[in-house]
C-alpha cells in the first residue's frame, strides 16, 4: 500500500512564470520525507505537483516526469482524478467538510470511489481510520456531530483520518501543523511516525525542529531572489542535512542564519 516516487527534471510553470526548476528526487516507500526552505521557495508548489493539485490553479503546468512506482502521473491518458484518489493530501488549515458529520467526513473519499458500502463495513472503516489518526477515543461518542465542532488539532487529525480511509499509496502534508498549538502538533507528529509504517509520507514544514523530529530524509529548497525559480538545493538523510550539509546555503538555513 505504499509506493515510491521518482521525480525527473521537473519544471513547474504558472502560465509563463517558472516557479520551480529542475527538480530530481527519489522518495522511498514507507518513509517520511520533509521539504524545508524559506517562504516562496516553491516547496508547496512542488508538493502539489505530486498529486496534480497545482492544476487547480488556472495556467499551471509542468515539464518533466513524476513516476509513482514507474508510472508517470503526467502521462497523456492519466486522469488527475485517479492520481488524487491514490495520493492523499492534508492541508495547511484543517478543512473537514462543515456540512458533514464526523462519520461522513471520514467516509467522504470512500463514497467517491465505491458508492456502495455496507453499514458494518463503513462502521469498521470509520473506527479503523479514526483510530489510525489517534482520534477514535475522543470522538467515538459523537460521530454524528458536525466535524467543524472539533478543536483545530482534532479537525486536522480528522482530515488525516479522511485521507487514510481510502488507503492511499502516498500521503502529502502541506504544513499540517502550522495552524496548531504545540500539544496538537505533538499529536500529529506522533501520528506521522506511525503512518510511515504503512504509507509514503511527504511533509512540507516551516519548522526545522519538526523536520528533524519526524523525517528520515530532508530536502532543502531555496530561491536566488524574488521572481527567480525555486530549486532543490540539497537532498539527503535528515541527520546529515542538519549536522553536516554539503552546501553552504543549507548550512546557513538550518543553523538559523537566514529564513
Amino acid at each position, binding site marked *: 500500500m505504499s509506493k515510491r516516487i521518482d521525480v525527473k527534471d521537473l519544471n513547474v510553470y504558472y502560465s509563463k512564470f517558472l516557479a520551480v526548476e529542475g527538480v530530481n528526487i527519489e522518495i522511498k516507500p514507507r518513509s517520511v520525507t520533509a521539504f524545508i526552505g524559506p517562504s516562496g521557495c516553491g516547496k508547496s508548489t512542488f508538493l502539489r505537483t505530486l*498529486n496534480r*493539485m497545482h492544476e*487547480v490553479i*488556472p495556467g499551471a503546468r509542468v515539464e518533466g516526469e513524476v513516476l509513482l512506482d514507474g508510472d508517470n502521473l503526467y502521462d497523456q491518458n492519466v486522469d488527475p*482524478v*485517479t*492520481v*488524487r*484518489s*491514490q495520493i*492523499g*493530501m492534508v*492541508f495547511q*488549515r484543517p*478543512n*473537514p*467538510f*462543515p*456540512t*458533514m*458529520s464526523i462519520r461522513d467526513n471520514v467516509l*467522504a*473519499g470512500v463514497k*467517491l*470511489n465505491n458508492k456502495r458500502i455496507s453499514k458494518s463495513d463503513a462502521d469498521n472503516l470509520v473506527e479503523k481510520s479514526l483510530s489510525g489518526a489517534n482520534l477514535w477515543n475522543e470522538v467515538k461518542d459523537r460521530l454524528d*456531530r*458536525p466535524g*467543524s*465542532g472539533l478543536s483545530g488539532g482534532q479537525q486536522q487529525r480528522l*482530515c488525516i483520518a*479522511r*485521507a487514510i480511509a*481510502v488507503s492511499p499509496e502516498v500521503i502529502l502534508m502541506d504544513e499540517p501543523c502550522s495552524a496548531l498549538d504545540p500539544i496538537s502538533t505533538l499529536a500529529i507528529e506522533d501520528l506521522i511516525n506511525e503512518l510511515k509504517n504503512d504509507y509514503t509520507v511527504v511533509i512540507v514544514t516551516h519548522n526545522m525542529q519538526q523536520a528533524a523530529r519526524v523525517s528520515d530524509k530532508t530536502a532543502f529548497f531555496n530561491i536566488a531572489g524574488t521572481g527567480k525559480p525555486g530549486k532543490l538545493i540539497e537532498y539527503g538523510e535528515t541527520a546529515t542535512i542538519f549536522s553536516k550539509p554539503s552546501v553552504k546555503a543549507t548550512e546557513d538555513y538550518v543553523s538559523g542564519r537566514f529564513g
Partner: protein
Amino acid sequence: MSTTTLTETRGAGQSGDKIFSGATLAAGCLILAVLFSVAVFLLVQALPVASADPAEITGGAGFTTYIFPIVIGTIVAAAIALLIATPLGIGVALFISHYAPRRFAQGFGYVIDLLAAIPSVVYGAWGYAVLAPELAKGYAWLAENLGWIPIFEGPASQTGRTMLTAGIVLAVMVLPIITSLSREIFLQTPNLHEEAALAMGATRWEMIRMAVLPFARPGIISAAMLGLGRALGETMAVALVLSGGALSASLIASGNQTIAAEIALNFPEAFGLRLSELIAAGLVLFVITLAVNMVARWIITRHKEFSGAN
C-alpha cells in the same frame, strides 16, 4: 493622576458612534413601522368583509368560497415558476461560477442580471403576444396525448393564455433573482473545502456536490424564497398573460386566477364592499408570503449546526 487618562473620552469619535447607532436603529424601526402600518391598513379596510352577509360577497357564497380558488391559483402559478426557475437558476449559476471560462462568465452574469431589470409589463406583453401562441400548439398535443393526467386535461386553450404559460413567464422573471444570488453564494464557497474534495479524487461535479452545494444550501433556499415572493406578488405579467376564470385542475385550459391579478383587474371599478373584498384578498396574500418566509427560515435554522458557520 493616572485614573484621569481612563475617564477622558475622545469627544468626536464617541458622538459619531452614537449618531451611527441611532441611524441604524431608526432605519430598523422605520421598516417595522411600514410593515406594521401596511398590516393595520389591510386589517381595517378588510374588516367589513367579516361582518358582511355571505350572499353579498362576489359569488354569493361567502368570502372563503370567493378567496379559495384564487389562493390555489396563486400558489400553483408560483409553484410552477419555482419548479422551473430553481433548478435552471442553480444550473446557470454553477455554470457561471464553476464551469464557464472566467472572461465569458462575467459577461454572461451581466446579461442574466439585465433580465431582472426588464419591467414586468414587458414580460406580460411578451408572454401574451409571443410565448402563449407558441405554447398553444404544445398544449393541443399535451391534451391529446397526456389528457388522462388531470393537469393536462383538455380542451386545451386555443390562445395558450393558461396557468402553465403564466407560470413559465413568472419562471423567466424570477430566474435572474435566483441565478444572481446563487452565483454569489457559490463563489463564496471556501477554497479550502473545494480543494479538500478535489484532493480526495473528486471530479468537478462531485466536488460541487460535496463542497459547494451543501455550503450554499441556505443561500439557495433564501434565493428561491425571494423568487417565490416575486412570483406570488407578480401582478402585471399574470394579468396580461392569463385569461382568468373559475378554478380548474387543468393547467393548459383557460381558467384559474391569482390574487394579485384579481386585485389589479377589479380594483379600478371597485367600491364599498367589493373594495373591502379585494383588500381582504390582499391581506390573504400578505399572510401567505409571511408564512412562506417563516417556513424558509425554519428550514435554514434546522441545519444550522452543519452550516459551517460555527
